[in-house]
């Protein structure tokens, strides 16, 4: 019996039925057959390349984002991103429409709604304007609306026992013209994990997760477990950055890839802004794994004159404003005292005029440029970005180094490489054309009706996934 094995010990048995293989091959659609995206790369992160795409069959003229996951096959972070996004549905969390598996080159592609903006680009735009002493016209409540929607999305994730773990401006997208104009979409769930049943101390898995600038002090002091409070700290950092256009805990970083959670310079920067934590403010600080190192390395007296209110005051945010008082509650050093996303959403800041709006641009013209296409010259870009990562410190201590990794395309040194390339959507980068397009898009959308478009999309997902 079992003759299938015993007859041919040396030959591998047939693993897959030929008819089954052919049938699935025929049913499987290829991403390049369905979408136009050649030359339309708009993002390059640590874990993938993102392209702006249109359907080839013209069944709709919407923009899509196609993320090609770095490397081949199903890495753990690809698995996590797919597993979680497949389940999550919230207006402030990016919607995964479909997954393409390309069997020949073993690439994994994720199809998303296209978000024209993200907070990294938005903040960068404001910084540049500030440097040139120009002002940017935005609705008064924009920062508030952004924060509210970020909190709403994170509250949804947290109440579904999902931690994001990599919140930073580059991962907070904002929708451009269209039915979801001005809507925040939390993206990049590659690091996210379920936290209801920790299988292993999380620190064992990815020693370095949250980008240092947005990293909570307890992580820098060696906390072994990620918590909701860690995401909240990052949101506090983003809020401050939105208010001031400066990364609040900006810090130079030589060794981004270190596996040691303790990071002296980053802690120093936090204390320089916040002051050194008092025993009574953070009782459990003594229990942190790196507490001894902290005591050895730092002197309280060096930070005597530092406080968040002084820092924010220097940036024209008054300590008696509602914005400041909410910021202070998000950026509490003691993770146990830091407020939850739910409490934050109840903060008086959000009931004070101007009220937050669904469209963060509140119907005003969007002052930010559309995403530019990056050159597709991978080889060159990769080696270049590596070289840049190595040199970045010496060259320009003020560069947003962390972002070099996350957004390697968009840095000073790389400016020459940026260019506008005609994609399948003509005239993308032209404001005037943009307006026209906006019109067309709107007509389209009203034709389809937002509600209908949504449920149609859902059906699409279910059917084609």
């Amino acid at each position: 019996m079992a003759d299938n094995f015993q007859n041919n010990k040396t030959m591998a048995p047939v693993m897959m039925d030929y008819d089954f293989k052919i049938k699935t091959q025929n049913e499987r659609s290829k991403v390049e057959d369905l979408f136009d995206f050649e030359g339309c790369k708009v993002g390059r992160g640590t874990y993938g390349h993102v392209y702006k795409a249109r359907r080839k069959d013209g069944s709709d003229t919407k923009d899509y984002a196609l993320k090609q996951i770095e490397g081949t096959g199903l890495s753990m972070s690809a698995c996590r991103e797919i597993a979680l996004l497949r389940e999550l549905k919230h207006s402030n969390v990016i919607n995964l429409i479909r997954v393409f598996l390309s069997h020949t080159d073993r690439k994994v592609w994720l199809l998303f709604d296209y978000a024209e903006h993200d907070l990294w680009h938005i903040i960068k735009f404001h910084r540049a304007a500030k440097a040139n002493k120009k002002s940017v016209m935005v609705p008064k409540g924009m920062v508030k609306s952004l924060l509210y929607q970020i909190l709403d999305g994170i509250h949804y994730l947290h109440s579904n026992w999902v931690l994001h773990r990599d919140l930073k401006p580059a991962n907070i997208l904002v929708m451009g013209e269209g039915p979801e104009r001005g809507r925040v979409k939390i993206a990049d769930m590659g690091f996210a994990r379920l936290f209801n049943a920790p299988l292993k101390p999380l620190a064992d898995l990815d020693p370095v997760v949250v980008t240092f600038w947005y990293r909570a002090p307890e992580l820098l002091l060696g906390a072994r477990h990620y918590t909701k409070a860690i995401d909240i700290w990052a949101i506090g950092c983003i809020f401050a950055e939105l208010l001031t256009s400066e990364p609040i805990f900006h810090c130079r970083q030589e060794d981004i890839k270190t596996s040691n959670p303790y990071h002296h310079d980053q802690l120093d920067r936090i204390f320089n802004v916040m002051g050194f934590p008092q025993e009574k403010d953070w009782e459990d600080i003594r229990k942190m794994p790196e507490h001894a190192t902290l005591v050895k390395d730092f002197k309280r007296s060096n930070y005597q004159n530092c406080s968040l209110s002084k820092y924010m005051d220097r940036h024209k945010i008054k300590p008696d404003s509602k914005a400041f008082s909410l910021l202070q509650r998000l950026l509490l050093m003691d993770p146990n005292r830091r407020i939850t996303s739910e409490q934050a959403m109840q903060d008086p800041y959000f009931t004070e005029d101007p009220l937050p709006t669904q469209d963060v641009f509140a119907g005003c013209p969007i002052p930010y440029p559309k995403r530019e296409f990056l050159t597709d010259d991978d080889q060159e870009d990769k080696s270049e970005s590596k070289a840049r990562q190595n040199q970045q410190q010496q060259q320009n201590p003020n560069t947003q180094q962390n972002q070099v990794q996350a957004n390697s395309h968009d840095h000073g040194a790389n400016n020459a490489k940026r260019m506008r390339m005609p994609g399948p959507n003509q005239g993308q980068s032209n404001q005037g054309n943009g307006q026209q397009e906006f019109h067309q898009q709107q007509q389209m959308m009203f034709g389809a009706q937002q509600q209908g478009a949504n449920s149609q999309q859902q059906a699409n997902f279910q059917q084609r996934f």
Partner: protein
Amino acid sequence: MAGNFWQSSHHQQWILDKQDLVRDRQHDLNILTEEEYQKIFNFFASIIQVLGEQLKLRQQVIATATVYFKRFYARNSLKCIDPLLLSPTCVFLASKVEEFGVISNSRLITTCQTVIKNKFSYAYGQQEFPYRTNHILECEFYLLENLDCCLIVYQPYRPLLLFVQDIGPDEQLLTYAWRIVNDSLRTDVSLLFPPYQIAIGAMHIACVMLGKENLKPWLAELNVDMDKIQEIVRSIINLYEMWKSYDEKKEIQGLLGKMPKPKPAPQR
């Protein structure tokens, strides 16, 4: 995603209809009797279990791998992919999703080889585990496609813990019910019923085994469809009945021989 079973892909796509399941299995059931079919699944569930234990995976991860395996064959004939290849592939994928940490390719293959040799020689004789990493990786893509990218699986363990907590601590009841949940992986209940119902079904059986009549009122108070619970109980009891008169070591070679197998590409 603990609080959200009702919105999950598990609930919306993977609680199958009994009739559909029977219909989709028709091809295999023309060749195997229902009992033979179940015995074959039993066998591969054991392989998944032992592989998982050897790899030091938690029971939750092993259960998820087993459900992937069952979901794949709920839609496909046993001949589509050799279940001996699909079993470790399910373990591999589940371990990534449940974030145990990636199992290295070589460790997975080595474990398959030792497990097949040391624990399942009664089925495979001197035959070695025939697959390599590239087979598993190729198979993984097919698995993910057939799962429709639904990777988060809800298991009865968490509701079980909650229910037992609710009754008041009862180690013995928990231990029994937990094992019954493990056994339920060898039936179709994980394809047909939500995990909380399976947990209740397992508690039911455990109560009867332990003679704990006092739990009846608690169970009665739960607002659940008792017909469903009865169906679950019946499936699991049937499994126990089957086990009484079944000697896997004697029968499995014959069953594997009879099992529908993949056909190679036609020779040109």
